[in-house]
């Protein structure tokens, strides 16, 4: 054991690493937004009268949930150009993250909407509100509150999954740290530091989620 830790390359690379954190945030937030869109769209299709559409959504969800993200991102990375879509690695990664997170979001959001009792809708309708008003003013907030814990922990997972986007060299923390590592050979020092960065990132994410929760979901439940 004649190894001495040397963090100099990490310190030199700090500005790059901090910028890369921003890249990770960008991937995470964009991925979440896309996941929510896919999630809501999927739930609507999942309740469609057309059987084929319902089964397509179920198939999509199970396909995504039962294969590794790494394989998904490779597949999308190679499939997009064949479909005539030329994108940089970073937008490609956002699409992959959104698709992956969307599959989980479909299941979560569906559970939330189902958890609101029919009586709530009926009370709204009986007061003369329209269907869209009932959804927006009555169903949405309690449903979001119900699913908030599972949705946000899924989003933390999505944030951590961004590191796999390094496999296609998207701009984020892991790929930048790999570059510093291969230049300096200080592998442990680099990856240890970056691990701490990730810990801080997921902590910040959790604080943000908790802040919104305290602000919007503070009404008492029985």
């Amino acid at each position, binding site marked *: 054991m004649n190894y001495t830790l040397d963090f100099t390359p990490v310190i030199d690379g700090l500005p790059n690493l901090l910028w890369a954190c921003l890249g990770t945030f960008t991937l995470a937030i964009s991925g979440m937004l896309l996941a929510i869109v896919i999630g809501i769209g999927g739930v609507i299709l999942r309740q469609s009268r057309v059987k084929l559409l319902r089964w397509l959504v179920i198939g999509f969800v199970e*396909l995504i949930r039962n294969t590794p993200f790494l*394989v998904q991102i490779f597949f999308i990375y190679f499939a997009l150009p064949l479909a005539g879509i030329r994108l940089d690695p970073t937008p490609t990664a956002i699409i992959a993250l959104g698709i992956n997170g969307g599959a989980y979001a479909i299941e979560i959001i569906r559970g939330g909407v189902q958890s609101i009792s029919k009586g709530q809708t009926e009370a709204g309708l009986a007061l003369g509100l329209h269907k869209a008003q009932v959804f927006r003013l009555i169903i949405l907030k309690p449903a979001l509150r119900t699913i908030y814990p599972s949705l946000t922990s899924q989003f933390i997972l999505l944030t951590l999954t961004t590191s796999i986007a390094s496999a296609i060299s998207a701009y984020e923390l892991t790929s930048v740290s790999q570059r510093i590592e291969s230049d300096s050979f200080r592998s442990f020092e680099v990856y240890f530091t970056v691990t701490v960065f990730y810990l801080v990132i997921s902590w910040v994410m959790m604080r943000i989620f908790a802040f919104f929760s305290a602000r919007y979901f503070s009404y008492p439940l029985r």
Partner: protein
Amino acid sequence: MGREEFLFLLTGLKWTVALSAVAFVCGCVAGLMVALLRTSGVAIIERLTAGYIAVFQGTPLLMQLFVVYYGLALIGIQMDAWAAVSVGLTLHASAFLGEIWRGSIEAVPRGQTEAAKALSLGYVSRMKDVVLPQAIRISLPATVGFLVQLIKGTSLASIVGFTELTRAGNIISNQIFQPLTVFGIVGALYFLMCCPLTIYGAHLERKFLTASR
């Protein structure tokens, strides 16, 4: 894609299965320790295990594998990629399973522990004969769910350089330039491993829900 290439993928598949099995079995043993420490009632130990769990849940699995891989080398333990990745995945599994089982242990009604204490059972018997059998039943759906996560997680071993299914796919794809076919097949193989488990987990959950009603 020829027979040769497909057989190579199957070799990769074999290693994926082996890696998942080792990590799951070792992870179960270590996870049980974590769960017991996490519910030990000793504040400092509970705090420390909570921290251990939080670190693994708050960082990417890929980074965990990197740190373990290079960290082991650093403290003078020379290992090949296979062993290092097994250690990394085992630690990862121990934290997640520990947290799942902590929840299940706490979900067993307090009265059960109290009744066992009233019968003057010691800690070991209380856990082994009364609490854990019930906790395991409660935790089964989530445990199966995590096994699926773990199988998918083994794909990251490819980035560290271990030739399991995904890396086998990468190699073949670079040889024959048919990435969509290759990754399609790789994905299908993962799906065939994971989907039955997912269905089984959902079945357990339903069974548990109806039983507890």
